[in-house]
């Protein structure tokens, strides 16, 4: 159920939030500049320095682009009397705007045109304004804006990927970036490309190991120097997080009067900082009516071992610990008034019931530097019935916040003004990390397909009319092949060293958790790689990847062939979807290059295993099964199976999409089309290698395709793969902290 807010109430919230944003900017500017508010006691020094987001190196550094704050969020609660209160400010890396978008999209799909009929205000124009604001903050006229993410292990990574895709910003990690001559660049397949603006979701501590925390391995050395030189806009500025401390609520009303000469339109929860003598006395006197909280985020005071607590619910020992803590470090504590929250209806699966809620509102600066409020946001609903604002933790549910307008709402989407959008056919440069991931995504999907084919053949599930019954020996070779790919090695022999049945080996090759090449491991690898480039994958592709591997259901135990076939189909469909629908840009080239490299290695190994100089007819037939060439062979040759005829069809026929010749022609095409940095017209290493391997295949005859030749071919292909990696990917650019270089006495 969305939380619906009417036009009058929203106008009030909007004005209050803009007022608040202006105040926050003014105060954070003063802290890092003149410090007149501190000198004149409007803002105590110790109410600032306790923040984990206070960085002294930011003092005296004017933010490039002119503002510390460009995108903030404010948490609000509504009391039972209908009056709103500010619960918290988020000035560093506010999360949730992406959730708000997703909530809205989910609801729009569910309710159809209801939103438009009810004049619900749309979110797209807000994001367009924010994008204009970031673009306008840069010194160059066509700036490149990156969304800096901590990486795919961060809990809100999915939201970041969604926002990057929605806003059209490349999603970058610290290792993707490099600083040269105090300018920030992203590593791309076309070399270094300048980045002018970063919308960061990475905490200041990790931004630059040389400037903040030297142990950070996810930052970019020198990023702070680019910022100091004025060559990089960071939104929000490092140090802005100092405004998030709960203690600041105690000073906001007075700061509003002093800085803006006005009262706050929506007040904070009344707050008293125990670092001040009179306020501490008030808290002690009215302890039972207050919530006692840490004054600073992320710091748990000694007297509050379990975090915020209601004064009246303190046990005797807890009260004693609090009093002892307050006596020596009063600056660590605030007392806050207890505010009850009003409720909103929520559907619990059976019926609507009231739930207390808090609402997060987002603000961004537009192209003119003015604040815009996102019309809507998201609400967090509490699980329990009676909740006091200050104690509400992470709600289990989130709901869309819809703002209703007086007038019909014109549809806007991020597509922009259709008349003024220049047509483009390039989607910007490809970052090296994305190229790397796409390449390996291609390799892994192809590997899953090949491995499942071999498992199916080993299980004897290939259905071809006149295919002979498998001899033990072909079966054994299939097992060898799987084991050499890291699938099934743990099920080769039992504890006594006795050979286990092929069936057990196949089961391990399918589901084995300790097998680096099992289908489970490959599917997990595919998912991991894809997660790192979610901003570049279509939702349909991601859904298929997410569904790739399923453990056996109870009724499927023993149904190995069926499960293998289903996995093979999924890997094949995934490869097909990517091949069919990816735009033919450099990203697709790297992805397809990965597939081709993997396939040529697999085909070579299959030929090397089954079409040896003394191969039997059964071996050759198995090879035709694996290569899916049975039918073609039978049509082409009326006689029985001849070694060189099979070799030629599987490995050398340029019309056979499994063959080495086919792969090499495409690989050469891709590598020739990749960007070059040399300006002397000479080929770079990958192209040179690709030409050599290609020549190897064009000139060989079927009779010479012995294991030695094929081993040589595989080694060259792997060299080519490494050369592509060295030239276009990020290899070795992850910084390590230099070990401590001090001896202390």
């Amino acid at each position, binding site marked *: 159920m969305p939380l619906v807010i009417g036009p009058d109430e929203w106008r009030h919230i909007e004005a209050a939030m803009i007022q608040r944003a202006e105040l926050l900017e003014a105060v954070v500017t003063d802290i890092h500049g003149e410090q007149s508010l501190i000198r004149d006691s409007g803002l105590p*020094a110790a109410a600032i320095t306790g923040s984990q987001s206070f960085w002294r*190196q930011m003092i005296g550094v004017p933010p490039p682009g002119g503002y510390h704050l460009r995108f903030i969020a404010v948490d609000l609660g509504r009391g039972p009397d209908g009056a709103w209160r500010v619960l918290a400010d988020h000035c560093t890396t506010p999360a949730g705007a992406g959730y708000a978008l997703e909530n809205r999209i989910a609801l729009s799909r569910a309710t159809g045109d209801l939103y438009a009929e009810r004049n619900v205000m749309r979110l797209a124009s807000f994001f367009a304004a924010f994008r204009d604001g970031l673009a306008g903050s840069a010194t160059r006229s066509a700036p490149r804006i990156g969304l800096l993410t901590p990486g795919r292990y961060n809990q809100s990574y999915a939201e970041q990927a969604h926002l990057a895709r929605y806003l059209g910003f490349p999603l970058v990690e610290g290792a993707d970036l490099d600083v040269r001559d105090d300018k920030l660049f992203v590593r791309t397949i076309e070399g270094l490309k300048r980045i002018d603006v970063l919308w960061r979701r990475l905490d200041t501590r990790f931004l630059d190991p040389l400037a903040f925390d030297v142990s950070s391995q996810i930052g970019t050395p020198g990023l702070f120097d680019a910022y100091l030189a004025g060559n990089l806009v960071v939104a929000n500025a490092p140090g802005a997080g100092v405004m998030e401390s709960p203690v600041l609520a105690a000073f906001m009303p007075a700061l509003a009067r002093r800085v803006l000469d006005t009262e706050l339109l929506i007040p904070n929860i009344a707050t008293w900082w125990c670092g001040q003598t009179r306020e501490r006395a008030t808290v002690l006197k009215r302890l039972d009516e207050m919530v006692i909280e840490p004054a600073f985020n992320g*710091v748990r005071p000694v007297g509050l071992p379990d975090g915020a607590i209601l004064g009246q619910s303190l046990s005797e020992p807890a009260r004693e610990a609090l009093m002892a803590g307050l006596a*020596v470090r009063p600056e660590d504590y605030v007392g806050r008034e207890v505010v009850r929250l009003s409720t909103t209806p929520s559907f619990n699966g059976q019926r609507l019931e009231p739930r207390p809620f808090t609402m997060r509102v987002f603000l961004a600066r537009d192209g003119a530097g003015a604040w815009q409020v996102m019309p809507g946001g998201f609400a967090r609903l509490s699980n329990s019935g009676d909740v006091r604002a200050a104690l509400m933790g992470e709600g289990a549910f989130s709901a869309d916040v819809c703002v209703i307008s007086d007038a019909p709402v014109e549809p806007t989407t991020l597509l922009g003004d259709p008349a003024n959008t220049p047509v483009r056919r390039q989607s910007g440069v490809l970052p090296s990390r994305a190229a790397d991931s796409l390449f390996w995504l291609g390799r892994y999907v192809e590997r899953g397909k090949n491995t499942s084919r071999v498992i199916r053949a080993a299980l004897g599930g290939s259905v071809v009319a006149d295919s002979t019954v498998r001899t033990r020996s072909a079966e054994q070779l299939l097992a060898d092949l799987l084991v050499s790919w890291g699938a099934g090695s743990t099920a080769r022999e039992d504890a006594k060293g006795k050979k286990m049945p092929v069936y057990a080996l196949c089961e391990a090759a399918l589901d084995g958790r300790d097998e680096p090449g099992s289908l489970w491991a490959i599917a997990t690898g595919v998912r991991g790689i894809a997660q790192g480039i979610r901003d570049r994958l279509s939702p349909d592709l991601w859904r298929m990847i997410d569904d790739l591997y399923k453990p056996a259901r109870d009724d499927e135990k023993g149904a190995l062939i069926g499960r293998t076939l289903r996995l093979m189909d999924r890997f094949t469909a995934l490869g097909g979807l990517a091949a069919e629908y990816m735009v033919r840009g450099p990203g697709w080239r790297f992805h397809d290059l990965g597939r081709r490299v993997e396939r040529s290695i697999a085909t070579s190994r299959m030929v090397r295993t089954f079409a040896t100089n003394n191969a039997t007819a059964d071996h050759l037939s198995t090879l035709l099964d694996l290569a899916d060439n049975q039918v073609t062979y039978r049509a082409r040759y009326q006689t029985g199976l001849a070694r060189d005829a099979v070799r030629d069809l599987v490995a050398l026929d340029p019309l056979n999409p499994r063959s080495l010749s086919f792969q090499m022609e495409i690989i050469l095409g891709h590598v020739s089309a990749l960007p070059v940095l040399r300006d002397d017209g000479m080929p770079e290493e990958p192209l040179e290698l690709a030409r050599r391997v290609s020549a190897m295949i064009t000139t060989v005859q079927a009779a010479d395709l012995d294991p030695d030749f094929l081993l040589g071919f595989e080694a060259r292909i792997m060299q080519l793969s490494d050369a592509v990696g060295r030239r276009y990917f990020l290899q070795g650019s992850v910084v390590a902290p230099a070990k401590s270089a001090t001896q202390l*006495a």
Partner: protein
Amino acid sequence: MIYDVSHKTTISYDGIVRLAQFNIRMRPADWPDQQVLSQDMSITPGAATFSREGAYLAPLTRARMDAPLSELVISKRFRVKVERKAPEPSPGDPTVDQVRDAALAVQRIDALAPANYLYPSPRAPLDAGIIAWCASDLVGGAGIVAAGLALARRIQKVFDYDPKATDADTPASEAFAAKAGVCQDFAHIMIIGLRGAGLPAAYVSGYLRTIPPAGKPRLVGADATHAWVMIWCGEALGWVGFDPTNGCTVGPDHILTAVGRDYADVSPIDGVLLGRTLQKLKVAVDVIPVEAA
């Protein structure tokens, strides 16, 4: 007292490292009772360098080496005049309670403002065990200098000086549990105890003139970088140094280089590089008295 200080650090890697970038904090900061007369630094192989103020009182030199590198030598020399008398407790000193209240009332956030040194910092978290252990010397009515000296002396007495017990990255809580460590560990433990009692405490890195045993010659290169603690003792006394390694207040034998919240703010050399490799470290420090001041 005038000293010639030389501090030579040789870092050798067992492989090649690339794009090494270092923060070097070896230029002595300006300080009221000491004066740097001359200084120079050399880095081999050559490096692109620039200097700027640090976040706290730790002047910073950044060195960037673009060429691959297997050994690095950083040589720092300076001549400094120290005119400091070791302070002694006096009945007129403010009490612990008075200092705590005064620190909260100072309305500044400059590099040496007490407000910066009240709160936990990365290497000095508010460890409840350490705070409780230190608290008995930091009672509210005690004179601040007497209380600081008592704590420094107790740390010196109880803890074993043992360079093998810890290294530069050992957390204070581990050194505290082992009751052993070196100057850095003792300084962090004392800082945690002081901040736990609400007192502003800073970490100081510098050098100590060592006095050879009677009859023995001074060994060249035997000295090392040293670390100690300063307490902000009210506006009148300002920052006063305490050395928990030696159980004394800080006088003319201590040469101050940098002041920060903990080791991380003043670490003489830290940085980043590309390449995974082991490093061997050789440090030679000499503190040679030139003449009595």
